């Protein structure tokens, strides 16, 4: 169990989570990168620019 860097909510990591994996916070939806697993450290994942082409 660790904390979302965006909204502060608890984020549950599954047992075999690995560094580099991207999870999302189920409270705010932020994409978080697993930086470390023991203890778990999360960081906001770099955002993919959505291209709307205008």
């Amino acid at each position, binding site marked *: 169990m660790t904390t979302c860097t*965006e909204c*502060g909510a608890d984020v549950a990591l599954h047992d075999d989570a690995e560094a580099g994996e991207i999870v*999302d*916070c189920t409270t*705010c*939806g932020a994409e978080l990168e697993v930086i470390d697993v023991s203890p778990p450290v999360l960081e906001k994942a770099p955002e993919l620019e959505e291209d709307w082409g205008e």
Partner: protein
Amino acid sequence: MAATPTGDVDVDTEAVSASIVGASGFAGGELLRLLAGHPEFELSQATSREYAGKSVGSVHPPLRGTDLRFSQPGDLESVDVLFTATPHGVTMEHIDDYQDAAELVVDLSADFRLDTEAQYDEWYDGHSCPEKLDVAQYALPEVNRENLAGADVIASGGCNATATILGLYPLAEAGILDGADVVVDVKVGSSEGGAGGGAASSHAERSGVVRPYAPTGHRHEAEIEQWLGQSVSFTCHAVDMVRGASATCHVFPDGPVSNGDLWKAYRGEYDDEPFVRMQAGGSGTYRYPEPKAVAGTNHAEVGFELDASNERVVVFSAIDNVVKGSAGQAVHAANVALGFEETAGLEFAGLHPVGSP
């Protein structure tokens, strides 16, 4: 969330009986649907003058197979709870009859939403029963839960007001709204206009629109101001959906605000709310509140984005106008008032994919 039964209605032993005035309309139809699937209520009567004698399923397809038929509003029998889903003005005129018939009246119109006669003079065409305004309680549990138990009259909020209030209430509570300038730009679906019809709301004219229909002076401003302690600049647009109200609130706080402040305000207010979902950024196709993600449900989605360069907070709030913005809010409030499980009858979580529900 369930509490001990309170109020005047006895819910201990058996189903609580409920009737609906205005059951052939859009909001009344939702009440029918929600109460039909509710574990605690038993439907008694559903009124319609136009369809009296016909089965409720002949108007509302989801109720096909149900034996209940519409009756005349004049033939109302005694019941535990009376839901009224009539146009503005009807409930204030009949409130004495309605209260004779039921210990709890839950009204979906604007007739008992405001606190004072003066507000009705300013925003509506006055009030014919101002002495009852005191006893009525605003339904929205997120802002008024503690006053619902024991209420005699509950007034379900306006749909646009509900979307706006849910979006801004955490900021108001956190003091972030104090002295702020606020613009509220709303987009709503066609069910907001009720079941009537008319040339402007015909499919051919109403399809595909982004149509300003209340550029200024919308009556819901009164409710919003009442609950936020703050006036807002409000503009409404009709867009091409049937269900849904989406409020984009552009807030310019008086002083600096951080993302952390915002999350604290919103999570503090809503983390324990069964019907409010935060949706702020994130990934995938659904990043911010969207009405179609909550269509058919009693959920509200609320989210925000900080616009540092303009010292602005953009708050998004999305609901289904006939559920959270009307019939669902009414049932939710009744659940609270009667000590039922708050989510009873309101469990439907929505559909994906879904078009324009």
